């Protein structure tokens, strides 16, 4: 420390992390308790995702991979629920779910508890939707299911034979599906489905991933291998389109405010750094 003590730039540059965390916590908690209702734009990709489902003809079969882990649930869960709302509300769509994540079946149960599909949409497990459970092996599992679903698994996630469910009638392999959706926290899954299903069977495919994974997935979308890539953080947009306000819309306020705080942090950090530099305190 110099004889003159710390300058204001030093103080500003070295704000204790506890202070930074504390401000972030306040900015995070306030909109959770008092939602601000800030506007939510609907991005082109979310719109494309919505339109793709909207264009599915009655009788279409959709495969969903619940490929995320518990850590990613707060981000991806609301998106998965909003899309299920859309599928069930549209009606006439068979929705078959599987998991490439070992936690998938538990997270699917959680999503269903939030959805209450029987109560809200009058759909029935085993007739309109089903979960065939966790299939180990990630890309090997994708390839095996695509080649022969019944040879890979013969029971649903509860251990009941698939043959007892009418939804599974005529479902044999990847060619039985009209659309593939994947929610995942892992690149193995989001990219694996491109390699194992789109490339081999040309199954139309959309995925929702963690926001930080989107740049990795964009080349696939720009090459036409994925119809739409969204991040779980865009769940609010999907809820707006589906008109089922829930966790996604609530978290949009939090995302806006925390991002603005980050911009303020960067600005203050740079003012402090440049102030110190130009006052001769640092090279």
């Amino acid at each position, binding site marked *: 420390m110099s004889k003159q003590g710390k300058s204001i730039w030093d103080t500003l540059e070295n704000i204790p*992390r506890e202070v930074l965390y504390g401000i972030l916590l306040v900015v995070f908690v306030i909109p959770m308790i008092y939602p601000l209702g800030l506007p939510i734009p609907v991005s082109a990709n979310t719109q494309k995702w919505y339109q793709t489902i909207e264009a599915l003809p009655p009788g279409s079969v959709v495969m969903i991979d619940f490929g995320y882990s518990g850590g990613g649930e707060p981000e991806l869960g609301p998106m998965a629920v909003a899309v299920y709302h859309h599928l069930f509300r549209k009606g006439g769509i068979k929705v078959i779910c599987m998991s490439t994540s070992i*936690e998938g079946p538990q997270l699917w149960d959680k999503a269903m508890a939030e959805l209450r599909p029987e109560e809200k949409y009058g759909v029935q497990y085993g007739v309109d939707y089903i979960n065939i459970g966790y299939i180990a092996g990630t890309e090997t599992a994708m390839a095996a299911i695509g080649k022969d679903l019944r040879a890979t698994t013969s029971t649903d996630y509860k251990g009941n034979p698939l043959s007892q469910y009418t939804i599974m009638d005529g479902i044999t392999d990847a060619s039985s599906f009209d659309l593939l959706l994947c929610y995942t926290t892992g690149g193995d899954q989001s990219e694996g489905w491109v390699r194992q299903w789109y490339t081999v069977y040309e199954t139309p495919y959309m995925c929702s991933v963690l926001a930080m994974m989107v740049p990795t997935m964009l080349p696939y979308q720009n090459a036409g291998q994925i119809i739409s890539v969204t991040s779980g953080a865009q769940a609010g947009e999907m809820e707006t389109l589906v008109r089922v306000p829930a966790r996604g819309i609530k978290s949009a306020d939090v995302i806006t405010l925390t991002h603005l705080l980050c911009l303020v942090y960067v600005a203050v950090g740079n003012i402090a750094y440049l102030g110190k530099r130009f006052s001769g305190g640092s090279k």
Partner: protein
Amino acid sequence: MSTTLKKTIPVAIVFVVALIVMMDYFIIMPPVDTAGKSWTNTAVRDLQNWGVILTAFSLGFGAVNLFYFHSKHISRRTPNQWQFSLWLLIVIVIFTVTGVAMGPSSDQYNWLYNASYFALSATVYSSLGFYMTSGLYRALRLKNVESGIFLVVGLIVLAKNAPAMAVYFPVLGTWVSFISDVLTTSAQRGIMIGGALGAISLGIRTMTGRETGFLGRLTEEERGGGGTA
């Protein structure tokens, strides 16, 4: 163990399996059945299902190995470790017993998962937000031209990702589209193509026995490098 058993036979198995899987993808080998599928289709289907079963088995094997490893810490009372090992084994037993007795889709198992692992997992992941914010404050600084470019691009993307900001400043959408569709995509494609070429090269080396990492520890002689072990 002889080199034949340790290297030649495993490499031959890998070579044959890889060849069948690739043949199934690229060519239709006669005889073809009434559905237009060749014999390789059935063979690959079975191989893939073996893969699924082996992966599931390895999960169970991993749990057994975990038990073995942590039991040693407990019996040796390894300082600052054995208590955690004991707790880990207790948790594994609770989850396993509940899952086997009540079923992995039972309310009891789901409660256990939601009340413990899920809550902890989401908390740990969410705590990253705090570290990232602090990191952002200290690291994203205008130190030179490169960091300046990084700073500007970072700020644009950060601002656009705030939903309300994208509404009030629609131009951010155009800028971010350019960044993601042109800059990011081109850089990512380069990385992906490089990775894919590397994977092909590794595959060929593994098939031909030049890459022996998957066989575990081999002597120089077993690896085919000659010399004494």
